[in-house]
């Protein structure tokens, strides 16, 4: 089957996803930043005592707080600065549901939930990119990239 069919028929569970960073709502912004930095991920999912997602805290929000309250990051709990819009899908949903969120809602991160509503992973633009690239190895995987701008004698130019 082609990509368009697979987007409709394959489930989110087949998308590449990252292990989600789960943090408590009382975690300070500074602690959250330290965790995000150590895990090299731009988003942490804030969960309640039962592991159900309450929202996400992202590097984008961190930038706003650095500009507005740079000296209070130790004191501000992340629950006060969750993204106003955040997105979840069930791992049984079709991949096209994630694509819809990315294209129509500008979602960068999408939480993947199991059948009980617990967060089991994080996907989004990166996972979709990898999934699509896997369908076209000849056109994508063999590309020579990493060139520097301003090459003086580019072959064939």
């Amino acid at each position: 089957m082609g990509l368009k069919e697979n987007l409709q028929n394959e489930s989110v569970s087949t998308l590449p996803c990252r292990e989600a960073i789960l943090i408590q709502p009382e975690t300070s912004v500074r602690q959250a930043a330290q965790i995000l930095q150590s895990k090299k991920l731009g988003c942490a999912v804030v969960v309640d005592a039962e592991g159900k997602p309450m929202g996400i805290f992202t590097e984008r929000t961190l930038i706003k707080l650095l500009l507005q309250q740079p000296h209070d990051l130790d004191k501000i709990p992340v629950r006060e600065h969750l993204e106003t819009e955040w997105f979840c899908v069930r791992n049984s949903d079709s991949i096209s549901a994630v694509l819809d969120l990315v294209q129509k809602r500008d979602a960068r991160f999408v939480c993947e939930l199991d059948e009980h509503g617990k967060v089991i992973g994080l996907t989004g633009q990166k996972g979709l990119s990898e999934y699509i690239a896997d369908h076209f190895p000849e056109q994508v995987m063999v590309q020579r990239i990493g060139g520097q701008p301003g090459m003086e004698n580019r072959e064939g130019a």
Partner: protein
Amino acid sequence: MAKLEHHLEDFVDPLSNYEPRQYSDAIQEALAEETVAAIRSRPHAEISPDNTIYSALQALAGLQVASLLVVDKGRLVGVFTERDVLERVALRFDEVKDRPVREVMTSNPVVVYESDPAGAALSAIAVAGFRHVPVVDLNGAVVGVISPRRVFEFLQLPGAD
């Protein structure tokens, strides 16, 4: 003259048996046959390497963008992204905020050329792992920046409805 005419009679067009590549999928064809120039790469945001890190954060937040192309006298010298803020700025903000952004940018970033096949754009994102990839022309001048969303838009992928 007689010798030249003899050679012309022997000439066999090397393209006489050429069959254009057949693609089973319109997306596959687009990735192979179209160029990066067909992918929307504007608008994009630029900053000078001498601007302060604080002003770079203001630009990211004010313009609501995830990346800034750092351009010096018309040449791309780096990229500064939300991820760079997390990794190089956030935990030592007071120490670095008045320093020039050149000190924390990603220097000599991976780029794609306008004339590269569109598949190179997806490769830079999905394989090399860069979320924002500058696009330059063959003279090295900045054209714009591509992202996963812009590539998906180019591929005209169908959504759920």
